[in-house]
């Protein structure tokens, strides 16, 4: 069992499994050094960070795909952390993570657009809050903000609704592709030796030396365990006898408008938080759409990812005020995600050295931004808990297919089309996704197990027609490439 353990420069890729028995980890010495539970953006980032070192690592996920929970349904913003609570762990990790992810994105081809944000004040109370927010931003290390008066605001965002009084400009805020980010981490982790076990739900844990995790696909033994279970982090904690916090799912519904709305807005338009609530944002996406949301509803059901008539009506009412012309555009998609809120305002990242167990919980809205910062922090906690990291090795390089409109797409790449005509054949017309891109995604390191997974890898079927024109063709390609047992 030397998979993934080669010395420096000699690296074997890990395996990706979806079915069948897990590797036999029962003989002494065959156990994984670390099992990371939960392949959302945080779990994937932790697994990737561990892959820099020599421990034998597995990433296990209850769903059939990486990034299939909260990580797939968020506001897709790379934050500066300007409005975090100064001095909090979140503030530190968001700032660290933002810096790391911005660099990682340009290295691996994750689309990012540094469009900047405007916190728009619509009444006197919100206006009055702007200087305080600017001050808070400074305390969070964000020194480039400035307050714009109504005229300059209007010049920056001519399509803003009437009544905008002022705004705080936060130049560093960016938009990013959340799907590519998670997939890049997971792909690089696997390419660098991490085993990824999907459709592998942990049902029980026998803490010990080593720990024994009983999953839906058999038992796994691990010396260290990282809980990156997101919404279920409290439930998983209980398996290790910990009851430190409770996760309350906070639903955020979002409406995605057609790409023709992209011309209406130049910045991320953030609400000014007041005592009366947080309001909603209007933000461009890297795919060229405009999103409106999210709502914030505290729920009990950790699977309640449905949208509601009331939620959508409230969003539309607020959107009409912020950007009236937005409501005239067609709606491309509606979705809802659940943030893993806890009773605390800060992240709940805790090491239990005696237990050789680390919990990464309460990663609410900023998890995508902070992911690489969290990962580095967690690996430090593991090392402090006694994990021998060994020598650091370079990660296997990855380059992700570009899904962003600000960067060249294959259908307009003359050289690529000349080299491979499959990139000259557009299958999904709304999103301009070519046969070549779909083919490559279906044979990638971590292939999708569903059409939704294929959509997150290529944008196929993500457009305004939602499959009216291309649905059957995309499905035929998917079913031809992915055997029935590997489909959800």
């Amino acid at each position: 069992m030397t998979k993934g353990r080669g010395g420096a420069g000699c690296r074997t890729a890990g395996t990706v499994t979806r079915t069948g028995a897990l590797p036999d980890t029962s003989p002494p010495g065959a156990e994984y050094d670390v099992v990371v539970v939960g392949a959302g953006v945080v779990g994937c980032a932790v697994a990737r960070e561990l892959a820099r070192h020599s421990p034998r690592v597995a990433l296990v996920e209850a769903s059939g795909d990486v990034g299939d929970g909260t990580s797939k349904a968020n506001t897709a913003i790379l934050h500066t952390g300007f409005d975090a609570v100064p001095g909090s762990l979140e503030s530190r990790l968001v700032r660290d993570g933002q810096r790391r992810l911005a660099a990682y994105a340009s290295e691996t081809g994750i689309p990012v657009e540094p469009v900047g944000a405007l916190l728009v004040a619509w009444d006197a109370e919100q206006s009055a809050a702007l200087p305080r927010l600017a001050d808070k931003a400074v305390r969070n290390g964000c020194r480039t903000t400035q307050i714009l008066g109504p005229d300059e605001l209007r010049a920056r965002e001519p399509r803003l609704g009437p009544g905008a009084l002022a705004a705080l400009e936060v130049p560093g805020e960016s938009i990013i592709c959340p799907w590519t980010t998670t997939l890049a981490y997971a792909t690089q982790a696997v390419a660098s030796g991490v085993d990824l076990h999907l459709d592998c739900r942990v049902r029980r844990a026998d803490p010990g030396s080593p720990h024994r995790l009983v999953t839906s696909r058999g038992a796994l033994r691990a010396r260290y365990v990282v809980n990156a279970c997101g919404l279920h982090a409290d439930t998983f904690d209980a398996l290790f006898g910990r009851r430190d916090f409770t996760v309350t799912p906070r639903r955020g519904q979002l409406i995605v408008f057609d790409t023709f709305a992209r011309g209406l807005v130049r910045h991320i338009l953030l609400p000014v938080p007041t005592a009366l609530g947080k309001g909603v944002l209007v933000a461009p996406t890297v795919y060229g759409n405009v999103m409106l949301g999210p709502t914030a509803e505290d729920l009990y059901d950790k699977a309640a990812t449905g949208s509601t008539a009331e939620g959508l009506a409230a969003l539309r009412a607020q959107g009409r005020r912020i950007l009236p012309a937005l409501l005239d555009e067609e709606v491309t998609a509606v979705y809802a995600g659940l943030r893993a809120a806890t009773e605390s305002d800060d992240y709940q990242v805790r090491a239990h050295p005696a237990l050789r167990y680390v919990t990464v919980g309460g990663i609410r809205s900023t998890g995508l931004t902070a992911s690489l910062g969290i990962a580095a922090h967690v690996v430090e906690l593991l090392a402090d808990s006694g994990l021998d990291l060994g020598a650091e090795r370079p990660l296997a390089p990855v380059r992700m297919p570009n899904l962003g409109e600000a960067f060249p797409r294959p259908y307009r790449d003359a050289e690529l089309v000349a080299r491979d005509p499959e990139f000259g054949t557009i299958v999904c017309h709304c999103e301009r996704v070519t046969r070549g891109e779909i083919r490559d995604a279906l044979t990638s390191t971590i292939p999708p197990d569903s059409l939704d997974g294929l959509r997150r890898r290529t944008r196929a079927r993500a457009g305004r027609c939602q499959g009216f024109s291309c649905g059957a063709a995309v499905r035929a390609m998917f079913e031809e490439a992915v055997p029935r047992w590997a489909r959800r």
Partner: protein
Amino acid sequence: MGATVRVPAAKGPAVSELNAGDRGLGVNRAVDVLVVGAGPAGLAAAARLAAAGGGRYQVEVLEREQTAGGAPRHCAHGGFGAAGRGRPLDGPGFARRSVREAVKAGATVRTGVTATGWAGPLTLEVTAPTGLETLSARVVILATGARERPRSARLVPGTRPAGVLTTGELQHSVHLYGVRGERLGRRAVVIGAEPVSHHAVGALRRAGVDVVAIVTEQPRGPRRFGAVPPPPLLAGTRVTELLGRGRLAGVVVSGHDGRTGTIRCDTAVFTGDWIPDNELSRSGGVALDGGTKGPAVDGAYRTASAGVFAVGNVLRGVESAGAAAAEGRAAADAVLRHLAGGPWPGPGVPVVAEGPLRWVAPNRVTDGTGAGSLLVRARDPLVRPVVSVTQGDRLLRRELVEGTAWPHRSLRWAAGWVREVDPAGGPVTVTAGVAPWETPRERP
């Protein structure tokens, strides 16, 4: 890279031989007429144009799908007129005949080729398996068709399970990809009461899927179920939520009378509610009509952009294939006049639908040419409406139109009044003066 393509110069005058490799954009070429979309309207226009003047004009049709013919390709039912000796024609037959006629007339019909944007007022950027191209033309005809609004655009709340689709995807699956039985689903609900809803039921039954209900907000369902028994109809009812994780488990419905319920099903087909595929038009700055959301055209299918015509379902959503083809032919005559040196008309005046009318098409009046008839679409059912046309204070026409205007079926109405419009005056307003015959609820 940088292929230099020499197009046979026998036909058509302006063939450029630019080596576009310099721009990294592949081939640059020019033709006389570029038609975007090889459906009934585009092919009919291409056939007539290619045949005109003994093949004087080079006509090229770009089709993004792998097969030409447009929507009729996957409409495996009758109602497409008659072939030779009165044999009834189905959609695929109609599509094949349309392609055959365009090709026979001398048009070049290319498939798997997508116009992705504009490089100039009459120049399109094109992606094809053979490379990227920049195609210029003297006339561009937009015939890009229409699509059904999917569940998301209709803002139907709930989860996002698999098994939720439009008739377009359903028909492609069943008629072009041969998907049958459980690969599609077991129990389906069809949402909508347009002619296409009836065809969705047909496609589901062909695939062996049980249609458990048709749900429509309209007071009645689609007509004509022929010899087969129609599925149970829930009229005056809307779908208020989709249920299920992974796969659709059911739909929650709510009647205008306040009753609610849940229908267990694993498939939901959202039908009708057409919207023009206007993206190429819009990205080229071609002015759209606010009612139809398609390019605004005059009676000769001219848009407000010189040299750009638009025909077929891109103008206003779905009409019959025969109607779309007739528009293609009518536009071809106007194209020929333009190619022969006819001037492009001034902006003219818009024709705006008001009151209970949702849209009217064509919806511009310029020099008054080509105005045979108009299509008028109502928001709610109107029995024998009195339609009136005014320009400013001037009443141009008021008449009772026989028949019922349905939200899903246009009234065709002679437009002789177009000649009385003052092209330098204000907007022309079309409205209907009869209260709706049945308005079971307020529109939101």
